[in-house]
């Protein structure tokens, strides 16, 4: 805990900026903002407690808080929904936790130029409830859709389940107002215009402030893309007798060229076994069903109806067996359940225990998927067998490219972890398991992370290797923008920027 952050003078100044009600120092407020849903070393919770939590309501208040922190060299950790899976919102060295949940207003809906400008604390589901009356939506659809917030999506560089059709967060944010680590508020976008989608003026700064995990500043406003509310949704789930057939079918579906295609996802044998064990849709499925491919499409009726016929033809022609409307429609509508259901796994003896869910989220080329799958499961098996607190929940591969979904995939191996049994030895084993998984991703020319960010132990130490010479540029930018290293220190190996 930082002595400076909790000093009376700092608390007094924060209260002068925000009012006493929005400067929190009580234990529950701080402990509840120390972790995210990803597996967490619960036996070392104390190490991640912020000194103070603050809840600003305006951009100007954010700027005043950051200026105060910078003057006193106090760390600032931005936090939105706290739903991230890579510890971006987890404090590493205490400091001020800046919670944006009160910054949840819609500032402008522009139906002529098709934009909506919001504060970072608004939730996409709530935003879309408001937008529906205008016949438009903001199509950013993470698994955390009911509970994550726009600011967190920007800080993480989020990935959307319907990104093949509409793009991911970075494609859907047109411009932002950003509070820099020194407290200045600036506008970043494509060029200078707030509602301009494509410009060649200057550097392309928008992407620099996307996915930095709070290490370069805090988004205080965002202007977002609006698209017509879809007239039609189509989802089809196909079953396959083996991985090879399902893998080939996935490739053909992803390369179909259908503009309304929103995503294709391949569940491997381990994933189907896990679902067959615990999911009402898969328990009754015949034993010869070993893998599943799911496809979704959105758009106008005029484009989605013929697209659905093409999808059905490809699925069947490539060896798939349609699992029926109830499974297809119901499972697609359940795509956000990961954040709504209590999770459990099994011990090696088959006993049910509560588990949290680690989702490895590498980006891997289509050609490398079969090899990565074999190697990841082999790694997971060793740790499952040796430690008794891990459970292999299988893998999926999900089309990754925005609008061009055929080349690379978000690839997850989902591993359940019995947090209550974690101690230093178990945690170290887990981190070592993650490192081995990450080594495989890099060996096949992949990226550590397609969507969650590389800010976890077991990921972060590989950032310099993945980035190569670009990591030196990252360090120079970090040091130039954040001379006192106050913005979310300890993340992405960026403390290295201050070593010399």
């Amino acid at each position, binding site marked *: 805990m930082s002595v400076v952050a909790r000093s009376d003078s700092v608390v007094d100044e924060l209260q002068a900026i925000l009012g006493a009600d929005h400067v929190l120092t009580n234990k529950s407020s701080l402990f509840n903002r120390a972790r995210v849903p990803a597996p967490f070393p619960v036996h070392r919770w104390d190490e991640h407690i912020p000194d103070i939590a603050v809840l600003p309501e305006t951009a100007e208040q954010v700027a005043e808080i950051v200026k105060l922190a910078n003057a006193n060299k106090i760390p600032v950790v931005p936090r939105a929904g706290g739903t991230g899976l890579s510890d971006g919102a987890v404090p590493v060295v205490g400091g001020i936790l800046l919670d944006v949940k009160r910054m949840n207003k819609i500032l402008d809906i522009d139906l002529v130029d098709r934009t909506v400008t919001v504060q970072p604390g608004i939730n996409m589901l709530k935003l879309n409830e408001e937008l529906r009356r205008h016949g438009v939506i903001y199509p950013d659809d993470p698994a955390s859709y009911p509970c994550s917030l726009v600011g967190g999506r920007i800080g993480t560089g989020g990935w959307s389940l319907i990104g093949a059709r509409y793009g991911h967060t970075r494609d859907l944010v047109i411009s932002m107002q950003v509070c820099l680590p020194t407290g200045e508020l600036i506008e970043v976008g494509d060029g200078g215009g707030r509602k301009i989608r494509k410009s060649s003026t200057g550097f392309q700064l928008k992407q620099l402030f996307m996915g930095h995990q709070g290490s370069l500043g805090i988004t205080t406003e965002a202007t977002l893309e609006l698209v017509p509310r879809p007239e039609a949704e189509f989802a089809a789930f196909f079953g396959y007798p083996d991985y090879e057939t399902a893998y080939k079918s996935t490739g053909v579906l992803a390369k179909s060229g259908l503009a309304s295609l929103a995503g294709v996802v391949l569940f491997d044998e381990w994933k189907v076994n896990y679902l067959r064990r615990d999911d009402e849709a898969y328990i009754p499925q015949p034993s010869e069903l070993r893998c599943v491919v799911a496809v979704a499409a959105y758009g106008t009726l005029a484009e989605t109806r013929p697209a659905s016929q093409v999808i059905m033809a490809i699925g069947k022609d490539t060896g798939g067996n349609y699992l029926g409307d109830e499974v297809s*429609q119901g499972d697609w509508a359940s795509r956000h359940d990961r954040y709504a259901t209590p999770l459990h796994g099994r011990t090696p003896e088959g006993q049910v225990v509560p588990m949290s869910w680690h989702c490895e989220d590498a980006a891997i080329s289509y050609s490398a998927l079969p090899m990565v799958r074999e190697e990841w499961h082999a790694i997971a098996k060793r740790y499952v067998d040796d430690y008794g607190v891990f459970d292999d929940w299988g893998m999926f591969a999900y089309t990754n490219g925005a609008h061009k979904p055929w080349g690379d995939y978000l690839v997850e191996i989902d591993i359940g972890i019995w947090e209550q049994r974690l101690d230093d030895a178990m945690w170290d084993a887990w981190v070592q398991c993650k490192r081995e998984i990450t080594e495989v991703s890099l060996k096949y020319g992949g990226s550590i992370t397609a969507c969650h960010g590389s800010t976890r132990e077991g990921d972060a130490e590989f950032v310099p290797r993945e980035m190569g010479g670009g990591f030196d540029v990252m360090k120079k930018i970090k040091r130039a923008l954040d001379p006192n290293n106050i913005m979310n220190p300890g993340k992405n190996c960026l403390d290295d920027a201050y070593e010399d």
Partner: protein
Amino acid sequence: MFGFRLQAERPPEPRPVANGVVMRLDDVYEIDPDRMQIIAQQSMPVSDTLRIVDSRWEHLAWMHDHWADNVLSAEEEQAD
């Protein structure tokens, strides 16, 4: 009414439907209680189970409606 008689709300005895899976009420799958020795399964009145099942269907319908005006059916398309 806030209370209930568990005896009047007790579900039927479980019947095995798959490896490690039992069913007490139609289409409601449960993990075999033998596999819940570490975390004990709680007693739940039938009305609560049915309420959760109904809520589930309501949620799925809501999610479809939230995203699009129409949900296309492959089965209907193929029947046409």
